[in-house]
């Protein structure tokens, strides 16, 4: 059977097990949640602040109310869990959640240029595969653009430090202050290593032909943001004009506001709804007082002597041609001048290939087999998580090249949208996001503009997740078409199909587990190993606390004024997942008391679960009585 994944996971470029860590966050198990998030994304802590979150755009909950705040839960996991490895230099016995893995095989030497998300992800993967990896970074710190340019009001250094420390702790060696083209050449690296990865990103800021790139009071985005982050912000003249409509331009504009610019005017070719920047970023900038001047193309810098006075722009009639290609056209004779004393151009970044052309072979034209390109250097502008993904892909390619073994391909199918008929049945639940500081307050500093969710809020937000794809699967070999599942499902999902075997629509199933626990032939299992998980957790709780409290997520959600406390709680999607066998196993594992929580009748989303649970508990009690054991060892908790 082909594997399915929920769309959140499929949408994450790094294939993050979103459901896995969201479920753990829901229980306040932040450290474990962090471990899950980090498994495929070494920059998970940073991504918790700055990711463009394609996962949320694909979350199935959106068709019920709003998507889960997936990104913020990643942030919460790192913030509230024991996330950060200590400084690797002093960390001989530190606690790291990523174990050093050595998958064996012959260790090869690999050099990576650039310690951004792509370079470090590839480095971590290759170390995990048993190779020796050295990363060469020209700056004194790692993190790439996240370190150098992304403003601190969006990404705190502590989060990035945490990610970097964890990567280093896996055994990745980073050499700082090492610049390609200055401290070493690509040919030297090739001579010393079995493989070289270029992951130098896009360090150049583009400028416009219409005026000089840099000069008094004319800046480009990357040097400007770099200078601000390095603690040497340029003194901005009173009114600032930012040219560009992308996310970087927005960062520039919001940074200018924080540096005390009297007025910030953003000028871009696109109309408001076609601006490449994310909607939420545009709204946040506007709230901070950034003025948007859309559909304008800069044509001439207005200056008197050395001082800038404004920017003359021409009205744009279209930006893209019929084929969707960038081909701006202007309205003849329609000009206007935006006044301002400083101009910052933020119209895109480019790669630096100077040191590559001079190599033995011009690597920009012809790529030797031992040289690989990763991250934005290879893909062009993208996102942090996109660079992480590409780092994984390139690491796999490098490993395959070095060992001669082809990389494994895993292509699961993606779970379809929640079918129309199911949508009204799922109870609506308000999405929680970290509060945003009032704009008047936040523009005064570079502190985080969003304080983030509290622990309790994060847990409740996590409980909104529908656990898509942890539902029922029928084993056709075992099904005897007894109709039990058909009768017990609260949503009439199972049907007896044409070949006299029960069929359960994966997209409809709400994972209550009732059919699986009732199927007398043991033909139904729950995906993602729910039964084993429940059993493991029940056994662990019984061993640790002599008590097991089976809870359903529904009830936890409704009760959750505080985090689920103690080691006794074993959460199930629905209490229907808790079988008689599981109750007995909990007792057998040494629990002196097993509580099975019930939702109030009106509060239960899974209609038949209540009655079945009452019947199951009664049956286990009867069994205990028959055996001369204490029936009160198991009880319903209303």
């Amino acid at each position: 059977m082909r594997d399915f994944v929920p769309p959140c996971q499929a949408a994450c470029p790094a294939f993050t097990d979103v459901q896995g860590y969201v479920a753990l966050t829901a229980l306040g198990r932040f450290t474990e949640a962090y471990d899950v998030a980090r498994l495929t994304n070494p920059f998970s802590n940073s991504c918790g602040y700055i990711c463009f979150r394609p996962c949320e755009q694909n979350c199935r909950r959106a068709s019920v109310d709003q998507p889960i705040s997936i990104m913020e839960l990643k942030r919460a996991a790192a913030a509230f869990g024991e996330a950060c490895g200590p400084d690797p230099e002093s960390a001989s016995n530190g606690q790291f959640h990523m174990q050093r893995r050595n998958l064996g095989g012959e260790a090869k030497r690999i050099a990576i240029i650039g310690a951004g998300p792509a370079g470090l992800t590839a480095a971590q993967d290759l170390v995990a595969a048993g190779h020796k990896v050295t990363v060469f970074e020209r700056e004194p710190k790692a993190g790439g653009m996240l370190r150098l340019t992304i403003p601190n009001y969006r990404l705190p250094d502590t989060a990035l430090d945490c990610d970097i420390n964890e990567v280093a702790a896996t055994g990745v060696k980073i050499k700082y202050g090492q610049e390609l083209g200055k401290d070493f050449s690509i040919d030297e690296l090739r001579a010393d290593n079995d493989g070289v990865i270029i992951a130098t990103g896009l360090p150049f800021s583009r400028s416009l032909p219409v005026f000089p790139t840099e000069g008094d009071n004319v800046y480009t985005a990357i040097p400007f943001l770099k200078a601000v982050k390095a603690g040497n912000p340029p003194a901005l003249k009173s009114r600032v004009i930012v040219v560009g409509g992308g996310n970087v331009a927005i960062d520039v504009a919001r940074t200018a506001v924080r540096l005390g610019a009297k007025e910030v005017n953003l000028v871009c070719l696109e109309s408001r709804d076609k601006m490449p920047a994310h909607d939420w970023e545009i709204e946040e900038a506007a709230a901070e007082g950034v003025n948007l001047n859309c559909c304008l193309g800069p044509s001439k810098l207005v200056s008197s002597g050395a001082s800038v006075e404004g920017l003359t722009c021409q009205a744009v009639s279209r930006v893209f041609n019929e084929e969707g290609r960038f081909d701006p056209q202007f309205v003849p004779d329609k000009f206007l001048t935006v006044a301002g004393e400083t101009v910052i151009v933020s119209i895109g970044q480019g790669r630096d290939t100077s040191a590559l052309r001079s190599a033995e072979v011009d690597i920009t034209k012809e790529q030797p087999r031992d040289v690989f390109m990763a991250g934005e250097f290879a893909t062009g502008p993208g996102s942090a998580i996109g660079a992480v993904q590409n780092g994984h892909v390139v690491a796999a390619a490098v490993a395959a090249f070095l060992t001669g073994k082809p990389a494994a391909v895993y292509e699961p199918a993606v779970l379809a949208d929640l079918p129309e008929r199911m949508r009204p049945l799922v109870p609506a639940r308000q999405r929680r996001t970290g509060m945003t500081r009032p704009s008047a307050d936040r523009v005064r500093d570079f502190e985080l503009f969003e304080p983030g969710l509290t622990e309790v809020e994060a847990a409740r937000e996590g409980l909104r997740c529908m656990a898509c794809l942890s539902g029922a699967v029928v084993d056709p070999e075992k099904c005897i078409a007894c109709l039990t599942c058909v009768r017990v499902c609260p949503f009439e999902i199972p049907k007896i199909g044409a070949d006299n075997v029960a069929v359960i629509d994966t997209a409809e199933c709400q994972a209550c587990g009732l059919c699986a626990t009732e199927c007398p032939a043991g033909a139904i299992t729950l995906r993602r190993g729910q039964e084993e998980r429940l059993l493991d957790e029940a056994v662990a709780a019984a061993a640790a606390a002599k008590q097991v409290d089976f809870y359903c997520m529904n009830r936890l959600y409704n009760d959750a004024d505080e985090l689920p406390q103690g080691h006794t709680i074993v959460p199930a999607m629905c209490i229907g997942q808790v079988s008689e066998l599981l109750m007995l196993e909990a007792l057998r594992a040494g629990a002196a008391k097993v509580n099975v929580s019930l939702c109030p009748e009106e509060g239960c989303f899974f209609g038949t679960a209540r009655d079945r649970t009452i019947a199951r508990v009664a049956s286990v009690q009867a069994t205990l009585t028959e055996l001369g054991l204490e029936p009160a060892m198991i009880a319903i908790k209303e």
Partner: protein
Amino acid sequence: MIVGQRKPIDEIYAMIVANDVKKLLLGGCGTCVTISFAGGEKEVAELTAALELKATSDGWTLEITQLTPLRQCEPEYTREMADAVKAADAVLSLSCGVGVQTLAAEFPGKRVLPGVNTMMLGSHSPDRLFIEYCGACGDCILGETGGICPIVRCSKSMLNGPCGGSVNGKCEVSPDIGCGWQLIFDKLNELKLGATWDEVTTARDWRPSWHGGPRRLESK
């Protein structure tokens, strides 16, 4: 189908202790008793857990192996159990009595204990109420009685209408039992066959039923 009901666990446990069983094979049956929630894979697992719980609390060493073939009433299927049967001190069968006996015949010298009471030939409704429908009498007369069997659905197996104990459609044996003949009467009326009500059923040949000793049937 054959409807079974799992025996009370104390009775089962007592049999295990009385027979000094240390290694038990718990054999389910994947057909009728599975459907009647008495002896399928699920009940086998639950019973295992319950027995082990009890044994542990008693300090009785009991090792249970679980196995649920498709049907215990066919030697071809029970043969799959041979190794497990050999390794066990005794087998506790959760099939109907047919399965228990097939097993015992298949494995001479091995104690086969029944874990299920075979209850009836019946059917169940979505609310899990099992009702007896057929007495396997060997001479079916459902054609004359509107499809309702007087042999099992009338407490006294009356063939010519109700006894004097039919009160408001209920049987005098219990108010939970509908009077079989009331059901037949209503059904015949529904089928507009009320007239046949008057026809006297002639003396019945009970020889094909259990009154002629154990039945054998050669299928042509």
